[in-house]
Each structure stands twice: as structure tokens, then as C-alpha cells.
């Protein structure tokens, strides 16, 4: 169910190069991407350009998407798991306008999915590319803000600092207190930020059939996890990695397997839990609901 022609759909702007970026910039980013794929989890510095969207709002993801996108690709854009949050809409409109590509909300139909903060619940398949928007690519930035130092730690695989931080959590709280942007070890070599996805999504990174690309525009870094690559969440033998669980299922579709957002329903403490992944939730509720949403209505 492709949003072929939603009401008020955007014409491709003939005055802008395909997918906005100039060809030399795309080549530079493509070369960085090819090396990133060959060194899973390693942050490749690239000449990030100034995009017509603000830093921190997905400029890295947009540059990656613009460099890989072709006219026959079908694009999906999500923010917080949803296709209809304003930032996701804005980025989707940007590519409709600059590349004229088909867009969809359907995870299974998308060739490229640009995401902020979630991995879709629907399992990805071979051939799909997931593009993450990354605000802070350096997993140790909060512990050591100097890039000149963290670069050395990655080079020498000196990750003691990271383990000390996690262990201090355990000493203080009884367990690891990192709930999102939970660091992972890629291909048993590089410690990597999975971007601020909830740790609930971390297991989906491991041995994914899809190619996962990460773009950090402001920090000027690109990195990648090829398909079928081992990605493990950092943990200790006596404190294994665990994901969040909820006591009830989604109030709309009943799923007990998805990440739930808490919604306040009144000012007396009333609340409910619903799927963060709107496409997953609506597809479980039935085709009727879903088609209405896909019309952009």
C-alpha cells in the first residue's frame, strides 16, 4: 500500500539536482559508505554538507539517503516509530520534492527506511536498507568528550572506560541504567552507538538481513553494519543484557511484542499504552484503518 498519490502530493522540483545533493558530494559520501561497510561499526569521518534542514534534525541520515536513493526506490521515513510525526513528514516531503520517489508507510514495501529512534517491529528483509539519523555517533562522548582521545581508544580497542561506566551503574543502581542509545559491540571489534533507539530494539541489530547505515551530519561521521553481522549489547556475565517489558499489551492492537508509548489520557493520572510503530499497529488492527492513514488523511 504505497502512498502513490496522496492528496496534495509534491511534484519533483526540476530546479534541484536529483535528491538535492550535487554529484560530487554524493560521490564523496558513497566512497565513505563503501569503506564504512568494510569496517563494521567504525566511524568514518566525511565532509558533511550544510543541508537545508537543521543540524540535529536528521542531516546525516538525509545525506546518506540522498546518496543511495534511486528513482525506483520506495522510501519510508519514521520518527519515534511513526510515519506521521512532523519531522518524518518533513523529511519525506523533502525527498518527494527533490527526487520524486514513491513513498510508503508499509515497512514491507519500503526499499529504504530512514529512521529516528526506532527500528520497525516488522522484521526487515534482504535488500532493504535502514538509514539511522544519529545525533551523537561517539558512544563514549559523555565519558570522554575529546574526539582526539576517543579516536585512539577505538584504534586500540581500549574500551575499559565504557565497561567502567556500565559497572558503576550496577554498583549504584543494582543494574545497568542505560535505557536507550545502549552501546553495542560490532563484529567483535568496535563499540558503536546504535543511535538513540530504545535498548528494546538492540537485538534487531544483530544478524539483520538488511543493511544498516548510520549518518551523523553535525558530527560528520558515517558508519555501517552490513547484513548478517554480529552485534552484541555490552553486558556482564552476572548482569546480562535485558530489554524493557510491559505488563499489558497495546491498547489498540493488543500486541505484546512491540515497544509501547505511554499516552496520558486525562489529567487524573489516566494513561494507556500503544505501539510506537504506527505501521505495525495499524496493520494489526486491520486493513480498513490502515488505508485511511496511508491517504495522508
Amino acid at each position, binding site marked *: 500500500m504505497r502512498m502513490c498519490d496522496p492528496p496534495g502530493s509534491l511534484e519533483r522540483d526540476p530546479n534541484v539536482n536529483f535528491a538535492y545533493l550535487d554529484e*560530487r558530494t554524493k560521490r564523496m559520501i558513497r566512497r565513505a559508505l563503501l*569503506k564504512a561497510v*568494510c*569496517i563494521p561499526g*567504525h566511524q568514518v569521518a566525511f565532509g558533511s554538507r550544510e543541508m537545508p534542514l537543521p543540524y540535529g534534525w536528521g542531516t546525516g541520515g538525509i545525506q546518506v539517503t540522498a546518496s543511495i536513493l534511486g528513482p525506483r526506490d520506495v522510501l519510508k521515513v519514521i520518527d519515534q516509530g511513526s510515519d506521521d510525526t512532523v519531522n518524518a513528514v518533513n523529511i519525506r516531503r523533502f525527498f518527494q520534492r527533490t527526487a520524486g520517489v514513491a513513498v510508503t508507510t508499509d515497512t514491507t514495501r519500503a526499499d529504504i527506511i530512514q529512521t529516528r529512534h526506532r527500528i520497525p517491529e516488522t522484521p526487515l528483509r534482504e535488500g532493504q536498507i535502514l538509514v539511522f539519523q544519529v545525533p551523537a555517533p561517539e558512544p563514549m562522548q559523555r565519558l570522554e568528550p575529546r574526539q582526539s582521545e576517543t579516536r585512539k581508544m577505538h584504534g586500540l580497542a581500549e574500551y575499559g572506560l565504557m565497561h567502567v561506566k556500565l559497572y558503576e551503574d550496577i554498583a549504584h543502581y543494582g543494574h545497568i541504567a542505560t535505557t536507550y542509545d545502549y552501546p553495542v559491540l560490532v563484529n567483535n571489534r568496535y563499540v558503536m552507538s546504535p543511535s538513540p533507539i530504545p535498548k528494546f530494539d538492540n537485538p534487531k541489530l544483530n544478524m539483520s*538481513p538488511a*543493511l544498516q547505515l548510520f549518518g551523523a551530519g553535525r558530527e560528520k561521521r558515517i558508519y555501517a*553494519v*552490513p547484513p548478517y553481522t554480529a552485534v552484541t549489547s555490552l553486558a556482564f556475565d552476572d548482569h546480562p543484557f535485558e530489554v524493557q517489558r510491559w505488563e499489558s499489551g497495546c491498547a489498540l492492537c493488543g500486541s505484546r511484542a512491540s515497544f509501547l508509548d505511554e499516552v496520558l489520557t486525562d489529567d487524573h493520572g489516566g494513561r494507556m499504552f500503544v505501539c510506537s510503530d504506527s505501521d505495525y499497529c495499524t496493520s494489526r488492527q486491520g486493513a480498513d484503518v490502515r488505508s485511511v492513514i496511508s491517504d495522508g488523511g
Partner: protein
Amino acid sequence: MSEQTLDLNLQEVGAAFSDPVLSSQAVFRAALAALSRPGRIQSVPHDAQQPPGATPAAAALLLALLDPDCTVWLAPRLAGGAVSAWLRFHTGCRIVSQPAAARFAWSDADQLPLLQQFALGSEFEPEISTTCVVQVKALDERCGWRLSGPGIPGRQRLAVAGLGAGFLAQWQANHNLFPRGIDVLLCAGQFLAALARTTAIEA
């Protein structure tokens, strides 16, 4: 700008892609798919006129990926022929004489120097290493080596015709350098398959 003067007859230089924007994108995606799934053969259809001595897939890769920011090393047979002028004319890349100074290399399989002679990157910037485009006689993913590593569920077969007998030992050394090391795109006709530095090969 390159200091090398472009000494060529425009009539003799074959044309590049008729649609440089979309063709470059399509060729790049084939390369991305190849390096994401080492050993899997990708097809690289395109309409550029490659110069004599160039394999269609190899010519398309370099045409799609290079620009004046890139250094390229050419193996002797390619450097001596029309390839050099064609590549410089269409991409503006700089040809260098030392493999270790090149971010890209283009060679026939029988003229490939020792892999350790290319740029291998540093511990801190392992991405500053050569990507080698190697023209081979044939590729077959139904038999041959058993590849494993990132991008490969289980084992991937790949037979490559034309590489020298010493290649496997050199590749093993390259693989052991990880995260440093080179990456290879093997081209036969309009097809390509890749070996990322993470790829382990069993004969």
C-alpha cells in the same frame, strides 16, 4: 587541478554514461550491495563506452565513484593504454605511480601487485586504504572458495578465474590486519563480486 596535462584526442575517448546522475547511482548501489554481501555476484548494466582493455563492470565502477578528489593507481597494461586518458577525462581523478598513494587501484588479475603494497590505512583511520578494482576472467558463486564473515549468513561460495596462486596467502595476511586492510571488487564482464577486508576465505 591536476598537474598532469590531458594529452588526448577527444574523438578517441569513448563516451561516459548517457545519464551520469542515475547511472552513477545504480552502479554505486551494485558496489554497495557487493561489499555488503561479499561473494555474491551483482550485475552492473550501464551504457558507457569503455576503452580497450577495460572490463565493463570495472569501467563503470570507476566512472561512478571517482572525481578530482581521488587518486588512482593503474596496473602497467591499463596505464599504457587508452584507459588512463579516458578515466582522467571523464572523472578528473589523479593518476599516481605508487600503489600505496592510491585510494583506488585498477588492475588485471595477472598484474596485481602484492596486496601489502597498497595503502592499508592506519589503526585510527583504517578507511584511508586502497579499494582495488580487479579484472578477472570469470566469477561463479556456485563453487570455489568458501567465504565467511560480516555480510555472509553461514558460508558463501565464490570461484574466481585468473587470480595468481599467491593471492590466497596475501588475502589471509590482509584479513589478519583488520581493521586495517584493502577491499577488493572483482569484475568479470558486466558482473562484480567483492571481498571486504572482513571476509575470511577457505580454499
